[in-house]
């Protein structure tokens, strides 16, 4: 599977879960690997990390624990990404 396609799936899942449950990196990787039996954890992790590096996703912190989420407009503005 192309990296871009994996990233689309990751983003779709993140959108679906937004506001419902805080996800850890591991939760996202597990879900994508479960949905696509040809994928391994490391490939998905690499795709996810690239999204974080360009601000498509971000690490977040709340309730005493870290998670990943879709960045707010405010965050993207601060990073000069929009």
């Amino acid at each position: 599977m192309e990296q871009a396609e994996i990233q689309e799936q990751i983003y779709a899942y993140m959108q679906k879960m937004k506001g419902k449950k805080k996800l850890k990196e591991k939760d996202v990787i597990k879900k994508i690997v479960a949905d696509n039996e040809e994928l391994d954890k490391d490939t998905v992790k690499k795709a996810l990390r690239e999204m974080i590096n360009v601000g498509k996703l971000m690490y977040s912190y709340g309730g005493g624990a870290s998670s990943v989420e879709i960045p707010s407009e405010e965050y993207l503005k601060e990073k000069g990404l929009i």
Partner: protein
Amino acid sequence: MAKYQTPMLDELEKGAWPSFVTEIKKAAKNSKMAEDELGQLEKSFQTKRGYWKHGGIVGVLGYGSGVIGRYSSLPEEFPGVAHFHTYRINQPSGFFYTSEALKEICDIWDKYGSGLTNLHGSTGDLVLLGTTTDALEPLFAEYSSRGWDLGGSGSAMRTPSCCIGQARCEWANINAMDICNHFTQHFQDELHRPAFPYKFKIKVSGCACDCVAAIARADLSIIGTWKGDIRIDQAEVKNYADNGMDIQKEIVGMCPTECMTYEGGELKINNEKCSRCMHCISKMTKALRPGEEKGASILVGSKAPIVVGSLISWVLVPFIKAEAPYEELTELTENIIEWWDDNAKPRERLGELIEVKGMRPLLEAIGVAPQPQQVKEPRKDPFFFWSESDFEK
């Protein structure tokens, strides 16, 4: 004239001990942020409560650790601390600096932040207290380009920390500073990108004196030890006696294993009986030195009270060689972390997970045999698990 009247804090400029209030006032001469910090703190002293909100979501692009969001709950009253984030710089092993390096850190900090620092934070980082969200990327560019990376925070590997080790201490059985630096570099990804169930702390002490409190506040406590005989210089023993030390009472009499005798001016140690607690060595540093076969004891699980009570680390591996490039130690550490990462719930520390799962699953997962050194005493009640592998024996 000062922007705020601070009678409560002014009181804490009196007295002999160095005053943190004076430090905030020094910074406030050049920084509106520090000035408003002073104003807000005075209000806290007057009303007996803090005015900081829960951490917010801030950081540098690509990282999830190292910056802790902090916002005033009274931004209109104290606009200078509306944003007042913490920027954790990963300290060098052993907290050694040159004045040149520290001054450069200060110059950059004065440009982008409040001018207030903690040398150092509880975990060990060089903590810069109080900056704005806009300043985070510039700060990271300035510091990282000069070789100063961010430390850990959140559900990540936390910045490893150590005692002074072999840099200055004759008791250091392991190269604590190098082991600390090794793990810091080895776990860069885990340190900056919080993917763990919760925090994970590694601390390294050169001997059982444990100057970095590894045994009390690290999920993985690495503590230097030795095998073989304590080296004795009888001439120096005599010097201690001549200078007024009551060797029978202070050394022999306080040895927890009663493995020492002092007769006819000669100090003898039955090394087989010695538990290597460091009492005698620490009191007669010129006369006694640890044995020459060096290594580390690995203990796991310590933490502060939240949630189900504080823990002091438990012995997992009584003795392991710990010499560069630390292959065995690194593999063991990775295996422990993997077991915890695979099994822990969110916000569950290693010690708490062991309490839930038991020590056996961890020992089996990392291939360490049960040994009497691991326990104070065996269990008391006749309820114990048997697994298939026990019947095969």
